[in-house]
């Protein structure tokens, strides 16, 4: 439980009325509401998880909320990131989320950090806050947030989502395990698809984000049993929660008995990513083809063989005149179907999966194979405006 000095915290008449449904609950009351007002919470990411949880925490009367995001609202965000509206497309997420929170509750102080949180600034950003909520979408930032919270002794309210499944816990190394106790290392890059690649049910971050908000409020109030030492796995398809026990690992490299990590490290490198982190950036110029060049080739009747490495359900949205349709995960077992003497152009949605395919085919001895830069998205943007984008 946090131990703020409540003697300096007063609720105004307007606040008494606004929070009346809290004030009449014995578990909250005036003291609890003052605790919420005295609390400061840092929300990292204002996307799928950050949207609903920041809106509910604002409504609940958290005194000070810090928001960290450097992204811009995109149309594909609107299916789940409810802090941002159709009119916000193209605006910084920090701006639209701040507006949404202020519209819900003007009594909340919102401090924005329009930056990519990394080893150079994480300690400074996190230090002034009581609680950190992790709403990020990548392993380097997850490990960064975990480590900074362990080093600063802050609770880290964790949630993550994929398709129909979510996970939630509270990592607080002062009284239980941290994220590294559970997963000492991240998976190699590309092994686990991101939401952008794998998709996510729009309401799922709502469910997991609200669990995170609930845990945050319980920590502030000092009421109930938090998820410290417990890991919730939620399946929306089965509509089932499974609860798993977590234990502190005495050999944990950061919160164990003899920690080997005593300061923040290079998380891109730790997660096996080069700076920039994209396979497509590593390809030689001779291994790339632009959509303009491909378009020209098709018009001149010099069509290369097109290899589409997307999943079958993606082909239903849009496709080019494919010669081969082999999802990236099946490429290894179906490689014999490809003709080594043919000129191949490989593509996917954005050019990342196909870059991995090109790298793989090159290593397997294919010489005449190129990656379609920007994928079918670039084709829709630059060549065929009638093609649906996703």
């Amino acid at each position, binding site marked *: 439980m946090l131990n703020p000095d409540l003697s300096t915290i007063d609720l105004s008449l307007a606040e008494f009325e606004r929070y009346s449904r809290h004030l009449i609950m014995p578990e909250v009351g005036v003291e609890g509401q003052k605790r919420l007002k005295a609390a400061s919470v840092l929300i990292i990411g204002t996307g799928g998880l950050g949207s609903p949880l920041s809106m509910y925490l604002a409504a609940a009367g958290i005194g000070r909320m810090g928001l960290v995001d450097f*992204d811009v609202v995109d149309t594909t965000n609107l299916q789940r990131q409810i802090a941002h509206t159709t009119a916000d497309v193209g605006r910084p997420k920090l701006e639209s989320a701040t507006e949404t929170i202020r519209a819900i509750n003007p009594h909340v102080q919102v401090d924005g950090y329009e930056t990519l949180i990394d080893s150079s600034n994480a300690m400074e950003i996190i230090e002034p806050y009581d609680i950190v909520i992790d709403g990020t979408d990548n*392993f380097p930032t997850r490990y960064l947030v975990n480590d900074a919270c362990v080093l600063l002794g802050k609770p880290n309210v964790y949630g*993550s989502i994929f398709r*129909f499944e979510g996970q939630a816990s509270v990592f607080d190394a002062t009284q239980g395990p941290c994220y590294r106790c559970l997963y000492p290392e991240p*998976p190699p890059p590309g092994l686990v698809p991101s939401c952008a690649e794998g998709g996510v049910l729009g309401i799922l971050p709502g469910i997991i984000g609200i669990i995170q908000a609930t845990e945050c409020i319980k920590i502030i109030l000092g009421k109930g049993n938090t998820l410290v030492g417990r890991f919730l796995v939620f399946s929306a*398809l089965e509509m089932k929660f499974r609860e798993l026990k977590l*234990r502190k690992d005495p050999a944990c490299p950061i919160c164990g008995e003899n920690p080997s990590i005593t300061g923040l490290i290079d998380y891109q490198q730790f997660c096996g990513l080069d700076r920039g982190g994209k396979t497509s950036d590593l390809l030689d110029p001779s291994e790339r083809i632009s959509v303009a060049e491909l378009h020209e080739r098709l018009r001149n009747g010099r069509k290369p063989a097109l290899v589409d490495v997307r999943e079958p359900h993606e082909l239903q949205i849009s496709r080019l005149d494919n010669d081969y349709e082999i999802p990236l995960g099946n490429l290894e077992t179906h490689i014999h179907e490809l003709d080594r003497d043919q000129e191949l152009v490989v593509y996917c949605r954005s050019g990342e999966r196909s870059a991995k395919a090109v790298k793989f085919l090159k290593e397997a001895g294919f010489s005449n194979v190129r990656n379609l830069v920007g994928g079918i998205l670039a084709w829709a943007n630059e060549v065929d405006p009638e093609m649906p984008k996703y």
Partner: protein
Amino acid sequence: MAIEIHIPTALRQYADQNSTFEVGAGEVHAALNELTTRFPKLRPHLFTEDGKLRNFVNVFLNDENIRHLSGDELKLKDGDSISIVPAVAGGR
């Protein structure tokens, strides 16, 4: 005896899209072996080449992480369930 293994969404593509798989084995490691024999593509996502469980995957017998169990604690009885829980980063 029927033991159910829960296969997480992220790994179902390597298990013919199955969300659960029933095994008859009497011990956790034997059960995982049964699973990866049926779905060989799953094996490299769970185990290293020398057969150790990978650092970014946890397996729970009921609600206990099998890394904290040994000997008889790993024996299975009717109604037990095994959950594979990989690290997932998505949040936006």
